[in-house]
């Protein structure tokens, strides 16, 4: 797996959020989940730009789903993490673990 295939911090957060939300991973719950987990406001622009980039890399796939009156009759776009996305996330997790490995206790104190 090349360097470019390792997802960035926001991409990792997005992949985890999609996996957490399972069948309900579309814009509004994704934004709520990310804002809560990251502790900051996340814009839809950032979410969809990242999702599009990850879709191009093959990390996620999307499909159009149901619409509700509350959405003005517009369809939701549901996202799902694909095998390359899971592999990339595992690689990122491993890389982070290696980075922290061997750091003496109290180093951050």
């Amino acid at each position, binding site marked *: 797996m090349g360097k470019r295939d390792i997802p960035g911090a926001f991409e990792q957060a997005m992949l985890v959020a999609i996996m957490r939300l399972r069948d309900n991973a*579309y*814009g*509004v719950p994704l*934004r709520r989940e990310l804002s809560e987990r990251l502790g900051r406001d996340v*814009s*839809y*622009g*950032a979410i*969809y*730009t990242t999702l*599009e980039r990850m879709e191009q890399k093959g990390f996620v796939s999307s499909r*159009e789903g149901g*619409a*509700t*009156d*509350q*959405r*003005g*009759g*517009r*369809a*939701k*776009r549901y996202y799902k993490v694909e095998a390359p996305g899971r592999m990339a996330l595992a690689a990122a997790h491993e890389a982070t673990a290696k980075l922290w490995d061997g750091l003496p206790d109290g180093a951050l104190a």
Partner: protein
Amino acid sequence: MSGWDKEMKGIFDRRGRLSDKEFSRLSRQQRWIYRTPVLKSIFIANAFAMATLLLGIGSLARAIAIAAGNLARRLEARAARVRPGVPRLAETILLLVLPRRLRRSVPGDLQEQLFEDSDRWGLGRARMLYWQEVARYVLKAMGSFLRYGIVAWLLHRTSV
């Protein structure tokens, strides 16, 4: 309707099925009508016509009630779809910068968010947040426009 007519109607409402005892109580004229198939049919047909008319009126009234109910539901659904509050100008600007494949999901998400925010903070603040999201989206689009040029941006915008 005369007494005689009522009596005949009573007889033929039972579709002409009379017992011997009942038949023996009929007058000569009544027996003559009862035995003449054409006249008997007319009486029976009248009874059927009356019943059909009543059923028809009932069905028509029911159909009108159902149609009125459907119309009310449709109007209610339309009112829900075009709930006041979504800033139309902001939505139009958003649609201009969105790629084709996201032109339904992103405005839908923003609208859903607007209703959530308006319940939480009121419509004024919710509309302001809607505008803020659109502005962020436009800035992102302008960024890619400046970075990749107009052709790449247009290709991206029209991508399916």
